């Protein structure tokens, strides 16, 4: 059985208040991806559409997109795993190709979060947690991650400044990523300046600066069998490992509050399948919906030992020039987090890095890259390892 490769990547700019409908938003990522792959829609055997459905008025967007993007009469379907929907889509595309059912599959991720107000959006996101037993207490995503931050700080002595350093790093790259929604610099001083919105508490200990930006956006990937990948592309990037895991939705059923078990489990599976170790990773995209989430990802993925994630960021090892560059496209924190589009955008970043096409954000000569994409509060975890060879 041959390998599976990615032969096309694209994404829209991540923006506040996209001036178009969801099918038009999907077209933006699709167009860039098709131009990148230089193939025809007739070459695509099936498509998978990924988002968190509660934002949309449109039911079953897969059929609507297939028509708008010219992907009929090929089969299309919809999948979701909250913020990791398009990583799940990629895993399904991989499986469809490995099974021999299809040779070329498109994965389209999108989210138009501005369809609803910010407060409504928070409430919708909160309902990705346990609506019977937790939502009645008034829960929100930042507060859940804040509980993890509090526990991490208590156990390992991680400080608010350590967390802020992660945001400062994200903004360094958000400023040079033309697709990013937040392109302004963020400094450490802003977190202690009451005049700066960054210092504004959201859910203690997390502040506005610790939280990612809501955005509208779309992403698009074309995945192909080895034979088709080699026929269509002179620069395919190969899927070396894929891991996925789930955890109890209810916080009361969790054992660990200083890390995400799904990140660790999905990572272990992906490393094993790819036959590599954390030391082999040259560039990574991790799910930094909050600063603490990136800190935990360092530890869950084995870039640092538990409790030592703070040393990585303090020594700038996760900057572009460091030993393990992480989120050098601005991450969810500065690039933005349009739920269903996020995983595909992370994959796009690593594919561009491995091809040497990441422009100002380019890491020096990477061969193996990793994508860590989480759904909900560590409810779903997906880790994908990509390679040039």
């Amino acid at each position, binding site marked *: 059985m041959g390998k599976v490769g990615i032969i096309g990547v694209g994404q829209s700019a991540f923006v506040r208040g996209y001036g178009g409908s969801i099918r038009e938003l999907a077209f933006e990522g699709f167009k860039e991806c098709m131009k990148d792959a230089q193939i025809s829609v007739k070459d695509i055997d099936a498509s998978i559409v990924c988002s968190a459905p509660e934002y949309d008025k449109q039911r079953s967007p897969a059929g609507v997109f297939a028509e708008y993007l010219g992907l009929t009469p090929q089969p299309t379907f919809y999948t979701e795993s909250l913020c990791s929907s398009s990583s799940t889509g990629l895993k399904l595309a991989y499986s469809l190709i490995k099974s021999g059912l299809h040779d070329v599959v498109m994965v389209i991720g999108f989210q138009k979060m501005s369809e609803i107000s910010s*407060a*409504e959006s*928070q*409430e919708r996101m*909160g*309902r990705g947690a346990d*609506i*019977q*037993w*937790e*939502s*009645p*207490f*008034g*829960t*929100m995503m*930042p*507060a*859940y991650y*804040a*509980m*993890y*931050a*509090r*526990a991490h700080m*208590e156990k390992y002595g991680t400080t608010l400044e350590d967390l802020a350093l992660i945001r400062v790093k994200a903004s360094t790259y958000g400023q040079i990523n033309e697709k990013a929604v937040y392109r302004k610099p963020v400094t450490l001083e802003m977190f202690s300046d009451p005049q700066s919105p960054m210092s*504004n*508490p*959201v*859910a*203690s*200990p*997390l502040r506005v600066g610790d939280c990612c930006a809501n955005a509208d956006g779309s992403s698009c990937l074309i995945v192909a069998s080895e034979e088709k990948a080699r026929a269509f592309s002179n620069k395919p990037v190969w899927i070396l490992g894929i891991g996925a895991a789930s955890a109890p939705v*209810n*916080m*009361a*059923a*969790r054992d660990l*509050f200083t890390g995400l078990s799904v990140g660790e489990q999905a990572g272990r599976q992906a490393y094993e399948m790819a036959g590599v170790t954390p030391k082999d990773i040259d560039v990574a995209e991790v799910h930094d919906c909050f600063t603490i989430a990136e800190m935990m990802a360092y530890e869950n993925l084995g870039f640092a030992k538990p409790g030592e994630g703070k040393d990585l960021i303090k020594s700038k090892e996760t900057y572009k020039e460091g030993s393990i560059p992480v989120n050098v496209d601005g991450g969810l924190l500065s690039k933005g987090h349009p739920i269903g589009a996020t995983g595909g955008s992370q994959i796009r970043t690593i594919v561009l890095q491995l091809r040497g096409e990441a422009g100002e954000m380019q890491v020096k000569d990477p061969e193996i890259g990793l994508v860590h994409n989480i759904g909900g509060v560590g409810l779903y975890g997906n880790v994908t390892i990509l390679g040039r060879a």
Partner: protein
Amino acid sequence: MAKKEVDDRFKKFGTVSFTSISKVNDFIDYLEKGKVAGTRCKECGSVFFPPRADCYQCLSSNMEWFEVSGTGKLLAYSKLQYGPVGFEGDLPYCIAVLDYGDYKVFGRIAGELKDEEIKIGMDMKTVVNKLPNGQLNYVFQRA
């Protein structure tokens, strides 16, 4: 013809309930009596909080109720300065998890506790709380 009566007691749980009908609606009756209750599987003895109607271990739905009593240790918490739609009147409030050993409980920390009094690892107890809008939940108090 008489309308079929719907047992929607669960809509009383929390500031805003997103569920009205559940097989563990008796949970609300326990709250009314000042008790917070979980379930225990009568077949295999598995203990569940929050309560479940069904045991995934032995596929039994033969459950008995037990009262959450004694004290648990505070594992994690966060104080919210912004709340979802419908919770604005409760702000600010703390969500938290207590570890009772055999099970854990997710809920809110009692409003009267000051920030500096809240410490991870502290012993707390779970007590029923009546909300200003007449709804019921439970909160954690210092033990």
